[in-house]
């Protein structure tokens, strides 16, 4: 128990002292998570809308692929991406291996199916009359999609929260393609893993607190946004 209590004490001291390394890692994690979430949602939500509203050949197969991708192990994604980004890989010329951009790509690959599958389910839950009504009132495809999305705003906000949660907590791909390089690609999760293995339980715990706080703040912010405007 002393070991745990000591860990907590050290964590609080580190946080209170404004340890530059901790805040550097937190800022990088936030940057990666926000960029990856924005990209994953900007592509995943329209894809989900498309899957939910259009009838086309292969739609069922596409939904199966998306749903299967939900359960894709993060280390496997990291591994495949490593193969693509390594110097001898097809995307090696980009020089992205062991950069924060590589972590973003890995996170997007993991969060995109989540955003697509969950938003497809959210859109399917909207009364089909909404779409028909928007169309009959003269809305084009974009306006119709916006109108339908507005009706599913709570569910779609939950999708964005889930996508953010996925990328911020992801470790497998970040470790493999990011490399956990100090001051460059070390994120909160990879750092927690590293400090734990090094026996620096206090540092790991402090980073864990930051991670939890970050998730909490983002969730509260989204809830505040959702709360605006009535039915």
């Amino acid at each position, binding site marked *: 128990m002393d070991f745990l209590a000591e860990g907590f004490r050290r964590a609080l001291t580190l946080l209170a002292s404004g340890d530059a390394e901790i805040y550097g890692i937190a800022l990088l994690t936030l940057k990666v998570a926000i960029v990856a979430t924005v990209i994953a949602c900007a592509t995943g939500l329209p894809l989900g809308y498309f899957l939910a509203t259009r009838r086309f050949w292969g739609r069922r197969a596409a939904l199966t692929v998306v749903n299967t991708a939900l359960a894709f192990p993060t280390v496997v994604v990291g591994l495949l991406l490593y193969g693509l980004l390594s110097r001898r890989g097809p995307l090696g010329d980009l020089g992205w291996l062991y950069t924060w951009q590589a972590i973003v790509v890995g996170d997007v690959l993991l969060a995109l199916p989540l955003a697509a599958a969950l938003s497809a389910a959210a859109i399917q839950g909207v009364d089909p009359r909404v779409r028909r009504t928007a*169309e009959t*009132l003269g809305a084009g495809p974009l306006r119709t999609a916006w109108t339908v999305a507005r009706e599913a705003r709570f569910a779609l906000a939950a999708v964005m929260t889930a996508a953010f949660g996925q990328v911020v907590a992801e470790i497998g791909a970040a470790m493999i393609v990011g490399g956990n390089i100090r001051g460059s690609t070390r994120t909160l999760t990879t750092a927690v893993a590293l400090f734990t293995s090094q026996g620096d339980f206090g540092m790991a715990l402090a980073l864990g607190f930051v991670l939890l706080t970050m998730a909490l703040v983002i969730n509260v912010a989204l809830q505040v946004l959702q709360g605006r405007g009535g039915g």
Partner: protein
Amino acid sequence: MVELRQVRHRYEGRLVLDLEQFSVPRTGALTVVGHNGSGKSTLLRLLALLEAPTEGQVVFNGAVVPRRAPASLRRRVTLVEQRPILFRGTVRQNLEYGLRIRDVAQTAANGIIGDVVEQLGLQALLGRRRHELSDGEVQRVAVARALALRPDVLLLDEPASSADRAAAGALYRALAAERAARPLAVCIATHQLEDAYRWGDDIRALAEGRLSPVTPENLFRVDLPAGDGVKSVRVGNINIAVMTDRTGPVVLAVPPTDIFVSREPLPSSARNVLSGRVTGMAIEHRGAGVHVRADVGGVELVAAVTAEAARDLGLSPGNAVVFSFKATAVQVF
């Protein structure tokens, strides 16, 4: 204005609509009657260009509509569904929705909204949200939202189903006012014959996705004289005896199934005994019934008889025929 040609429409392989030809004329008020599941709502969705038929063509203003109708074309037709839905936001925001899409300036939009709100008596509801409205109010707001767009064709699916009679009256008066003010094609689907008789210039019946020859025909717009009991009114060259207390302008309907058909006048209690000639015969979809069309004194009447009766009477076009019906069989709307 909008026309369906050789349309066969299927849902998951099941044929739900099979129409050789169906058109809504430019300034007509057409009512489509039929039971639930007869294909009325599907018909309206095709006419609204929201769906493309599985087979056949939709023609708008003389031009064939592509399978994915462009928004510019869809904006000229507006459908109000049977159970309409309002979007999130206030009634006013709902009324503004289509106007914003059409880039109508705020001042002009306010004027239009003011007009429709007054027509449909929605003044008190403008600031309310959908969960604060009754079903009947939602329906009126939905009709107002459609009327505000000044469409060329307005399609209404059971527009008065949730409204009380007074609200339904206001709704139909608003439609009549709009039609009087500008060219507007209206098509109303209803299962309430009373609405159909009252508001339709022309009535079509739909049964199992097909136009049914059992159209509620034999409609006459007349002016009833004052008084009670049996009244006689002039229609064309004939007089029709009708039992009613109503006076003034009404629509008389003689249900085709209430007409007795014979080759010669028969002694009976029927106050209306009309002689004429058979002008046409139509066999019902399933072949069990025949619709006998006859010219009686310059007025065309349709009577429904069984195929067996038509055979026994030896009816064929050109034959002399007598149509009889009771004064109490005549419905007044």
